[in-house]
């Protein structure tokens, strides 16, 4: 049973566009929601993370929106650049889950020049 569902699987935008990636979770015990960015041949790198006590968090051009009642969260990449082309993974964890991360299936983002 996939506890974190991520969509879409792939996304193509023009430079300057705003790719939006959505994730939905089932386990209400989750209380930490990070996003990771992965380039080909590299390990995932932590991008930004949010806890359920806030509805939005911004770091540079990356914004997480969080909807606790809907059990959904999303990543927006503002003013996207070709260098943002990568695979993005959402994840969730909580103390009740042993603080292990449960990952979504990933979204491959391509930003065209």
């Amino acid at each position, binding site marked *: 049973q996939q506890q974190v569902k991520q969509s879409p699987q792939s996304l193509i935008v023009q430079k300057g566009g705003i790719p939006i990636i959505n994730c939905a979770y089932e386990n209400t015990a989750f209380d*930490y929601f*990070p996003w*990771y960015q992965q380039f*080909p*041949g*590299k*390990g*995932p*790198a*932590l991008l930004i*993370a949010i806890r359920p006590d806030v509805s939005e968090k911004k770091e540079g051009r990356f914004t997480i929106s969080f909807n606790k009642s809907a059990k959904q969260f999303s990543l927006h990449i503002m003013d996207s650049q070709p260098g943002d082309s990568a*695979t993005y*993974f959402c994840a969730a*964890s909580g103390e009740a889950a042993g*603080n*292990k*991360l449960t*990952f*979504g*299936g*990933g979204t*491959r983002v391509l930003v065209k020049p």
Partner: protein
Amino acid sequence: EADIYQTPRYLVIGTGKKITLECSQTMGHDKMYWYQQDPGMELHLIHYSYGVNSTEKGDLSSESTVSRIRTEHFPLTLESARPSHTSQYLCASSELGHSQFFGPGTRLTVL
């Protein structure tokens, strides 16, 4: 500089060989993890450790084994490699809270 290292980065090996994938971190993290990932696909947790002499199996069944004799070192061993073990293996570590930091990965190909 604090970091997490994996060696080798690439390994091509024949069926039946024993292999050990190395993972070391210099951050003093108690928690360490091994994930298996096919290229561009989701990550599957195969082993984790919350400290020295503590190891647990993850969500995805794996024929590999791990050990945690030192805080900084978390090697993964396959006693008899098979083509089905071909994948990328990622090591990660974390301390307080939940943020996990990943190594660069080992790309394993079993012929």
